[in-house]
């Protein structure tokens, strides 16, 4: 039997520990949209049904009073406010409201149109935990946190495919999702995103593996099943359809066993379609955007992209303010941030890594499999394209949308870029460079938890 490599086990344990720490320290509902995600989880756990009935209230009676007692609504994005920490207030809530109905929510809310896979998973934690409202909230968070080690595994495996079994490079790649604070913060909240990051990282690995070493029936089935699971987790994952189709197309073209491979893919698609039909949520509300105002158009979209990417001022540069800040450290309802200096340091690290990875890629260009490159590029462009199109459409009705954490599904590729940059370091210095990188990410993570404590409890 094959053993799990010790460095991988250590990184997966680290990731779980950090995600659980965020799950424990983050006050109730002080993560993006957690009220809605928990309402979905609770309603599903209590009734087995999906929310969205316009005739029902959004939240259960228990949820309403627990959130009110904890001061959640007042604290959201309000740096002046703190969550409730009076023990007497807790006792008042326990005596008066702790046994209120849990199953009388189920109304429409911002997450009600989402697909159900992650909520069904988090509902297991909710059901297993028992206890009071906050025990069940924490349990649902911890079930979400369990996906972060899987994200780390995907990053490790992807680096193994791209660079071979070079453990230092795999450690560098897997350390990115394990240590970058936003992965642990988001994965440690009730949200579909933690599960989505994990499934994306496995799809990216399996896609590359299938392109490099062949598409077997088992790989075709698992790849389509993973894409289906990702789409049943969050509709952002429809961006995986085009890269997955590329893998299947190229794999079938190269395969000597076309019929079994195609059959396996069709079987997985059939299971996916059947499940989607069963739950009635094939497409999530997060891509069904009903913007009002100006009609979206190609010219308008081009103008939007120009404004987004072409710098007018270094103090107001959207890729920095949304992508960089939001993918590194923007907690709570994004109001918990460091001073700008830390983000400039992070930007320098990102530029170093991207520049190094680009140079390493250029140096080895004759050995790069073009289909693998196309698959990776398609995944990134499909994600970015979908995000920008949604952001553009919503911007027409002045609804803010874009956030840096939306880039995290390609965290495994961010890790691969870090590993690629590390290949440029001479072998004798590579261990030192790796330690420096780990120390930097760990320092940012510790500072992030300090920032959280200062924001909410001091």
């Amino acid at each position, binding site marked *: 039997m094959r*053993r799990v490599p010790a460095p991988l086990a*250590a990184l997966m344990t680290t990731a779980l520990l950090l995600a659980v720490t965020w799950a424990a320290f983050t006050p109730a509902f002080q993560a993006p949209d957690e009220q809605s995600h928990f309402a979905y989880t609770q309603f599903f756990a209590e009734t087995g049904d999906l929310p969205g009935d316009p005739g029902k209230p959004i939240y259960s009676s228990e949820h309403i009073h627990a959130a009110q007692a904890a001061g959640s609504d007042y604290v959201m994005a309000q740096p002046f406010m703190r969550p409730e920490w009076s023990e007497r207030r807790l006792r008042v809530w326990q005596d008066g409201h702790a046994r209120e109905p849990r199953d009388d929510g189920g109304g429409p809310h911002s997450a009600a149109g989402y697909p159900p896979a992650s909520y069904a998973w988090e509902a297991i934690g909710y059901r297993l935990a028992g206890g009071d409202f906050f025990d069940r909230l924490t349990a649902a968070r911890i079930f979400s946190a369990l996906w972060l080690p899987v994200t780390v595994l995907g990053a490790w495996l992807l680096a193994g495919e791209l660079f071979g079994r070079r453990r230092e490079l795999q450690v560098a790649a897997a350390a990115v999702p394990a240590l970058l604070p936003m992965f642990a913060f988001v994965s440690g909240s009730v949200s579909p995103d933690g599960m989505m990051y994990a499934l994306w990282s496995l799809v990216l690995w399996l896609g590359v593996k299938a392109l490099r070493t062949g598409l077997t029936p088992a790989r075709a089935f698992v790849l389509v099943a993973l894409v289906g699971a990702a789409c049943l987790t969050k509709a952002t994952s429809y961006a995986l359809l085009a890269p997955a189709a590329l893998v299947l197309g190229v794999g079938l073209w190269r395969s000597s066993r076309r019929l079994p491979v195609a059959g396996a893919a069709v079987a997985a698609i059939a299971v996916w379609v059947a499940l989607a039909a069963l739950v009635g949520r094939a497409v999530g509300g997060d891509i069904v955007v009903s913007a009002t105002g100006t009609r979206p158009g190609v010219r308008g979209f081009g103008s939007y992209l120009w404004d987004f990417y072409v710098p007018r001022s270094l103090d107001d540069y959207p890729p920095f303010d949304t992508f960089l800040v939001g993918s590194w450290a923007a907690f709570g309802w994004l109001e918990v941030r460091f001073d700008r200096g830390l983000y400039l340091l992070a930007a320098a690290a990102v530029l170093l890594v991207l520049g190094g990875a680009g140079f390493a890629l250029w140096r080895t260009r004759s050995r790069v499999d073009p289909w693998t490159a196309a698959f990776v590029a398609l995944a990134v462009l499909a994600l970015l394209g979908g995000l920008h199109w949604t952001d553009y459409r919503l911007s027409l009705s002045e609804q803010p949308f874009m956030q840096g954490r939306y880039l995290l599904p390609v965290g495994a590729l961010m890790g691969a870029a870090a590993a690629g940059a590390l290949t440029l370091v001479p072998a004798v210095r590579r261990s030192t460079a790796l330690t420096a990188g780990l120390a930097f990410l760990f320092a940012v993570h510790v500072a992030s938890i300090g920032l959280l404590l200062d924001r909410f409890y001091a």
Partner: protein
Amino acid sequence: MRRTFAILFVVGVAVALASLLRQTRLEYVAGAPPQLRVVDLRPGQQLCQGPIDLPEGARVERVSLRATGALTITVRDDRDAVLGRGSTRAAGGDLIAPVGAVASPRPVRVCVEGEGSLWGAPATASSFATTLDGTDVIYDLALRLERSHSTRLIAALPRVSARAAVFNAGGPWLYALLGLALLAGVPALLAYAATRSTQSHSPEHSDETS
């Protein structure tokens, strides 16, 4: 591995210490965020907000509120006994009023008199009854109850973990344990990962997964 662990441990502890050097004087926030000017108080009027259930061990030495003008703050308990009183002075964008030393196991009210404008928010999710001259109003003030001297966050860590544990699963012990795991366990795991990654080309590791 020892050297890598030592580097990571020192970095982690140094950053944790630096993060925890921030000053804090906050005991409790009682009210709403300062979103808008909710009332212009005239001489002779009294605005009261309560009941405020102070956390166990809280000691309130000054009240900070988002306001302008010259105001007098009185802290009373639920039997109307005066526990503290003081006049406001400007501090940054806020007014602060030293009120002595208030520590009450009973619910308290904060009452404001004088002339000035006060900020707060509509009482949509409020657990307070705010009154103007005894009549209920539909807003809450932005009030912060503080100590007069600030302390470093690191010295306040026991209080911080007790606060985090109130509306949450687990007790303060859980936060202490997680803090220890973060500062000692994570560096150990990372050092182990980094060190083992440099030793992985030997035949003994050939049965590992990719």
